[in-house]
């Protein structure tokens, strides 16, 4: 249960590489380059066959996938389907349907030709280990690249599942799974890639980007942040209140027990409304989590220590209103609610990534906008409100990867919405067509004929040539023609 060896995260990529590791990684990278340069991954047929292979994998090996996720994270298979497999099936089907490979309309005068970038590297993360590996993979193969996938070693059962199956269902010479910890990550980043997508912590994001800079490798970083949830009074409708609380509880604890970049990190609510909210959350928690089976566990001992550590601070401990029970043996922390822990405590300055929910009170709900603005930009801002003016202010005055009103986390499954961060939550967006674009180069191609020759562009220059160019740049075609004909200066 959980690995003893330090993760890539912990060591910041500074391990001594194992003997032979460098060569193994180099060999893998050259194999991928050879595969890409053969041109095989460019064809529509290849891309479609990979996507179909992936779909078959997800269908045929579903039970094994569920088992792996249960082993790694204690994830219930319904959550696993809802958040990982189901989403992947949807995405792969969408990619197959869309046919983003353009028909080269020849001869066109000016066109944008999306081309694969080449050989790309995807670093996945442990909390949605299948989803964060395969969703980028869908985009990368749809765009015609050769791909190296490095699953997180902190979810070893899923990593093994991927290692065992990807080669069986997809083109193993052009799509490779590379296993290992920080030392492997470091070796991989010694090489030049045509793109790297990294999902994980800002600390390692910096390490990855710095390594990429040496080769001018373009990167996309999907990081995290503290996703706030602004909870307004909802006009007194009990039913709507319950709906909202269902969604808040789900958005916190049903997403890998809060260990999700899109999970609600903390709630902002008006002082006077706190009792109603807390009562509703408590009863919903009771209804949803009838036993520990329905909530994921903490991924490993290190994160368990980190989360328990957040509660050790005396003034934080004093603010615990509900829950707080720690089960170190099973790596379980029960859903915990805190009321107004100190704003400078670790639980309010670091991304929680766990089942602890601070509730911060404000005098007026509008004050939450300044609260959010004063802090680093998160991956998502959530707000439950019926107030259109407040909604508009939140969209216009706060900045985040995305904003979702009256729900949480569900934006992840919507293809038409780009998924990615801004500022400290990262850069680069994917999902749906954006995945295709993330792994493509949009080459501009302009074709000219020989017929129309514009002598004005050539030296030696004189006043009339300059005049002509002025007209042209002003799109003043009449003026241009007159000047050309010598009838205007």
């Amino acid at each position, binding site marked *: 249960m959980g690995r003893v060896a330090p993760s890539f995260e912990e060591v910041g990529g500074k391990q001594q590489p194992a003997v032979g590791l460098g060569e193994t990684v180099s060999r893998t990278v050259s194999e991928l380059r050879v595969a890409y340069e053969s041109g095989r991954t*460019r064809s529509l047929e290849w891309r479609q066959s990979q996507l179909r292979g992936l779909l078959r994998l997800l269908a045929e090996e579903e039970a094994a996938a569920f088992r792996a996720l249960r082993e790694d994270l204690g994830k*219930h298979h*319904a*959550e696993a389907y*809802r958040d990982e497999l*189901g*989403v992947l*099936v*949807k995405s792969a089907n969408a990619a197959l349907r869309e046919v983003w490979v353009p028909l080269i309309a*020849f001869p066109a005068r*000016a066109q944008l*030709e999306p081309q694969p*970038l*080449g050989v790309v590297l995807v670093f996945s993360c442990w909390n949605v280990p299948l989803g964060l590996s395969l969703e980028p993979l869908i985009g990368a193969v749809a765009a015609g690249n050769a791909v190296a996938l490095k699953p997180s070693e902190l979810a070893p059962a899923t990593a093994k599942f991927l290692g065992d199956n990807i080669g069986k269902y997809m083109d193993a010479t052009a799509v490779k799974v590379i296993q290992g910890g920080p030392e492997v990550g470091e070796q991989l980043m010694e090489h030049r890639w045509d793109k790297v997508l990294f999902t994980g912590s800002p600390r390692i*994001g910096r390490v990855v*980007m*710095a390594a990429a*800079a040496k080769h*001018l490798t*373009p990167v996309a970083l999907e990081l995290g942040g503290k996703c706030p949830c602004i909870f307004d009074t909802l006009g007194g409708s009990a*039913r709507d209140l319950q709906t909202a609380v269902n969604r808040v509880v789900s958005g916190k604890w*049903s997403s890998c027990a809060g260990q999700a970049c899109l999970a609600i990190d903390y709630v902002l609510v008006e002082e006077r409304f706190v009792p109603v909210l807390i009562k509703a959350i408590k009863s919903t928690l009771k209804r*949803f*989590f*009838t036993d520990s089976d329905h909530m994921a566990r903490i991924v490993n001992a290190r994160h368990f220590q980190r989360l328990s550590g957040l509660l050790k601070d005396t003034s934080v401990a004093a603010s615990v209103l509900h829950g707080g029970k720690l089960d170190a043996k099973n790596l379980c922390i029960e859903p915990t609610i805190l009321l107004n822990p100190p704003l400078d405590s670790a639980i309010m300055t670091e991304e929680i990534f766990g089942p602890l929910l601070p509730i911060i009170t404000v005098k007026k709900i509008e004050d939450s906008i300044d609260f959010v*603005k004063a802090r680093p930009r998160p991956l998502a801002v959530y707000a439950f409100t019926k107030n259109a003016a407040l909604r508009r202010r939140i*969209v*216009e*005055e706060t900045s*985040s*990867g995305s*904003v*979702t*009103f*009256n729900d949480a986390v*569900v934006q992840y*499954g*919507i293809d*038409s*919405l*780009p998924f990615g961060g*801004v*500022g*400290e939550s990262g*850069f680069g967006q994917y999902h749906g067509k954006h995945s295709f674009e993330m792994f493509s*180069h949009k*080459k501009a*191609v*302009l*074709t000219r004929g*020989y017929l129309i*020759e514009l002598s004005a*562009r050539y*030296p*030696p*220059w004189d006043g009339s040539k*300059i005049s002509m*160019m*002025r007209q042209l*740049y002003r799109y003043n075609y009449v003026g241009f023609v007159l000047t050309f004909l010598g009838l205007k200066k």
Partner: protein
Amino acid sequence: MAARGGVGVEADVAALRAQFAAGRTRGAEWRAAQLRGLLRMAAEAEAEVCRALHADLAKPYTESYVHEIALVKSSCRFALKNLKKWMKPQKVSASLMTFPSTAMVTAEPLGVVLVISAWNYPFSIAAGNAVVLKPSEVAPATSSLLAELLPQYVDSTCIKVVEGGVAETTALLEQKWDKIFYTGNGKIGRIVMASAAKHLTPVVLELGGKCPVVVDSNVDLHVTAKRIAAGKWGCNNGQACISPDFIITTKSFAPKLLEALGKVLEKFYGDEPLRSSDLSRIVNSNHFNRLKKLMDDENVSDKIVFGGQRDEHQLKIAPTIFMDVPLDSGIMKEEIFGPLLPIITVDKIHESFALINSMTKPLAAYLFTKDSKLQEQYEAGISAGGMLVNDTVVHLTNQYLPFGGVGESGIGAYHGSFSFEAFSHKKAVLVRGFAGEAAARYPPYSTAKLKILRGVLKGNLGSMIQAILGFPRGK
């Protein structure tokens, strides 16, 4: 504007952050006003700008006008015309999974951005950012003119010019920016990206490369020669990132091409090119010496077939053409960025592909041919930032095509709406209602719920209806 140290820069950035946080740069009115100010500056200061460019580069007036003034003006006009459209949130289809809901993508400014040596700063303003411009110190007259003029035409609390060299640039790079836009070479590009990594700042790097020109024998020779010459020597005398760097053509066609180029060059610059006012000089003595070294290499100097004249005093080098220099010579290994044009010959034109692919990906790849099959193969087989067939350089002016590199030639693209996007964050916004509560998504999980979830995620309408109607009931 005097050069400043780290403290001055830090204070500048803090001031810009405050202005941005106060929302000063967000409204369409402010953005439009800045763009109009830039337009006025380009119009009113045209003569001064051209004089400065002439001082820095001996740039012919027309070149300055076309490449700098006109481009800035047309960028401003294009941005003004499209501003409202770009700022408008785009509705996108929300999924049935979240019915009822509306989804949209809205463009928001990134914040405070740093633009190093690029002339397309109008778009960073159009996107609503606060901007620091760091003009190239290699063109000092232009740099100080910009520093002097810009504050007179735009809101200098939100748009600043910081001049200087290595020290100032280093100080700037230490600050935290919301985006860095750098134009220049790969070596500095790496330094910029490494600094950006410390703050997780996204970057756009417009770098260089050796832009190849493949010339088939099936062409209109005279027009081809003119367009190559205009792109090579008519753009700062070869000192432009998209200048044709070298030519590849067949052994049989090379003499004809050379002859045509020679004729064209004589027409453009006369028989004493060093005295032509239409030819820019080399920007400074460092670069002059670098180019001189490339030319004087013993394996290369005997391959000169046209030109070769130079004047150290004026820092001028005449258009010079080489025939079949060794592929491992300096002139074929680094980006030339000057008026030297090697012609490499091959037996069959298709051999040019392998040669180009053996080099790093360039910013632009050019092809002259009337053979549509060759064109198709070139488009499919060569990777470059952009591609232009039967002309050189002009794709730069098309506001509808993204301009940017790939691989060593850079990261990110811009021009027109792509610039606006480069300086924006596309924020996804989802608005849900309270109806359509789907119990199936919540724990405690059951087989019945999972069945419905499967259906919903597969797009099965029946399942969606069930989900929306709250099945399975009673949980």
